[in-house]
């Protein structure tokens, strides 16, 4: 079956630093990948997505990198702010659904 997991369950950074959250996936047939942010008591919120015909995509302060050779996905957050503190999930799309990983808790220290 599909398996999407994260290398680090927690990540603590200083305000202003860059953050990198990593994710490994197992289903090489997936052609769509997405990152969500989930704050306490809220539903997952879309951050950025990428399709398999790309290896990098940038948004506002965020960048997603896709390495299909090693089946690895990462989320980079530039100039991390206290409001970025949340749990971050990667997910891969196939069979008309998204399959989520376990999540990484990002804590931003002032």
């Amino acid at each position, binding site marked *: 079956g599909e398996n*999407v997991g994260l290398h680090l369950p927690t990540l603590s950074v200083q305000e202003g630093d860059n953050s990198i959250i990593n994710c490994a996936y197992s289903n090489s047939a997936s*052609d*769509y990948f*997405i990152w*969500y942010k989930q704050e306490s*008591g*809220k*539903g*997952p*919120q*879309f951050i950025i*997505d990428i*399709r398999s015909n790309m290896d990098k995509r940038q948004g506002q302060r965020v960048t997603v990198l896709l390495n299909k050779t090693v089946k690895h996905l990462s989320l980079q957050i530039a100039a991390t702010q206290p409001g970025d503190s949340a749990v971050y*999930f990667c*997910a891969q*799309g*196939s*069979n*008309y*659904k*998204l*399959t*989520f*990983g*376990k*999540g990484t808790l990002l804590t931003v220290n002032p």
Partner: protein
Amino acid sequence: EAGVVQSPRYKIIEKKQPVAFWCNPISGHNTLYWYLQNLGQGPELLIRYENEEAVDDSQLPKDRFSAERLKGVDSTLKIQPAELGDSAVYLCASSLGTGGDEKLFFGSGTQLSVL
């Protein structure tokens, strides 16, 4: 534009009691999903609807869980009877297309506690 709306936000029940969750997706979104999220875990798909048809319910425990989306708009997820292990957050999501290659929009979820 309103997002995905879920109610109630919280529900506390005793085991063996029934419980129901309601979801109203984003207007115009044909596909609706119910996900289960255990503490510290990522969401897991329970059921996916395309309009009023349940096209993927392979992960729904059908002995106690049921769902409906009668008019292809809002949806209800029911558990009867609830067990202690059902305590979790139940998330509803919707998407414009058939899913798998597009982002899902999530509601805030219903946090269920079974005592």
